[in-house]
């Protein structure tokens, strides 16, 4: 390891194509995908957006967390389909019936559009989450001119959830080892969460407090702090920012215009 690259924070695997895209471009990409999805009511376009986000995700880094998030969102979409298929206010045309219960075309179509939007956002966010580390975001934001204190507050929001989940896993594992929490069914899993909520929150707060003490001792708010200039491996960052921002503005403008004129 040379002196130069020791402190850039570059871990193994930084040469992947998605590492050449900066975090802000990825965030703008999520915004544009969401806006495109919300601007359209065409299922083919929605399908295209889903396919595009899915391809990006599959060609980047697929993690178990992504599958869990996808599984949960598919469950949500399924419930949406059932509810809207049955009770959507503009339901008129029966599409099919199951044991005498009618599912309507209008409601199912509406739920499919909503579900597609959820999927687009989940998949696009998943691409951001699996390809960008918290520290990469922090470094980029700091190098962009934000104070480290502000960056830290922003980033701490991102890692408090994984920290809570990690603590939760530890507590539940300990419970299982003691035989007090079998967690075989979904209901058992749900029930097991409730009694550990208070110790979980206290433990996480305690960890946050320890980290806060440590950070202050380590002088993280020192006015002399200077962000280290790492090797900038991002490509076409400005082009990405301008291009995606223009697309976002156009989409917002178009949506507002169509709303005002009552076109959709």
């Amino acid at each position, binding site marked *: *390891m040379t*002196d*130069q690259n*020791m*402190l850039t*924070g*570059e*871990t*193994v695997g930084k040469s992947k194509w998605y590492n050449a895209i900066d975090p802000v471009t990825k965030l703008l990409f999520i915004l544009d995908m969401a806006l495109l999805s919300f601007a359209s009511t065409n299922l083919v376009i929605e399908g295209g957006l889903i396919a595009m986000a899915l391809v990006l995700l599959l060609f980047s880094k697929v993690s178990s967390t992504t599958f869990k998030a996808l599984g949960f969102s598919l469950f949500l979409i399924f419930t949406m389909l059932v509810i809207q298929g049955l009770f959507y206010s503009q339901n008129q045309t029966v599409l099919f019936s199951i044991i005498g219960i009618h599912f309507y075309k209008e409601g199912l179509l509406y739920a499919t559009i909503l579900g597609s939007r959820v999927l687009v956002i989940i998949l696009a966010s998943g691409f951001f989450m699996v390809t960008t*580390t*918290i*520290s*990469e975001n*922090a470094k980029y934001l700091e190098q962009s001119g934000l104070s*480290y204190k502000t960056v*830290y507050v922003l*980033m*701490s929001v991102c*890692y408090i959830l994984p920290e809570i989940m990690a603590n939760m896993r530890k507590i539940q594992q300990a419970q299982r080892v003691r035989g007090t929490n079998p967690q075989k069914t979904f209901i058992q899993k749900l029930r097991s969460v409730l009694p550990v909520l208070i110790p979980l929150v206290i433990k996480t707060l305690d*960890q946050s407090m*320890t*980290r*806060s*003490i*440590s*950070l*202050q*001792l*380590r*002088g*993280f708010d*020192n006015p*002399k*702090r*200077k*962000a*280290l*200039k790492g090797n900038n491996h991002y490509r076409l960052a400005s082009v990405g920012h301008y291009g995606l921002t223009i697309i976002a503005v156009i989409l917002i403008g178009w949506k507002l215009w169509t709303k005002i004129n009552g076109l959709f």
Partner: protein
Amino acid sequence: MDEDKRIILKDINVRYRGADDFQLKHVNATVTAGKIIGIIGNSHSGKSTLCRVLGGVIPNIISAEIDGTCNLLGYSPKDDWQAFNASTGVVLQNPAGQLSGLADTVADELAFDLVNQGLPASFINKRVANVAAQMGLTAQLGQSPESLSGGQMQRLAIGTAIVTQPKILIMDDPTSEMDPVGRKQFFGWLDTVQDTTVFIVSSEIDDLCEVADSIWILKDGELIVHGSPEKVFNHLSAQWRIPEPTAYQLAQRMNWRLDDNRYPVTSAELKEAFDAQN
């Protein structure tokens, strides 16, 4: 002696908000700069609270009722917090909590304090490499801190505390998660530390006796005895329930005494006592 060459604790009393009892009671001590102080005591004796006072965590970061005077090499945590903080390095009891949480690699984590001081990258690189070598973490520099074992994490936490070359190093049980080899290496390293005053809380009595210039025993928040390891362990009260060093126990059983009639507490002294008997 100059105040800026001593660590002075004068009648320190500490009570946390909402607590009935004081966690530290009338702690008085003066230490000459450059010494290694081993702090021992049973659970809830006030060891961690004392570390917090020495590190300035109380009252600057954790709010607590505190009386008395704490002066470290001329700096007061109340009056000169920035200078005080810059001259101290603290290793917390929980090594994972010591880490910034925003470093991709061990190198970045070690560099954190130096980056905060606005030092140039070339200087930081050299210092990080040097500290990593001292802590046996050179091979892990490119790894994620989260991938480290408990002992390695503790060595990283110590590394983050020494990277700024503090004049005073305060370590709260820094070897609790280390394996015997790691612990031996740590105390071997500690023995080589120069020009730094070290306060170390540890339950490793044998190792402490080998490296410490002075041992402080805390009981129920009071500093009940302090002095050289030989002096402290030769006047240990059974009521304090403090374990004795292995060398001391062996010498006592064999009645091997030093020239001044005291029992040895280190391996070198044990050999000396053995040679004197034979």
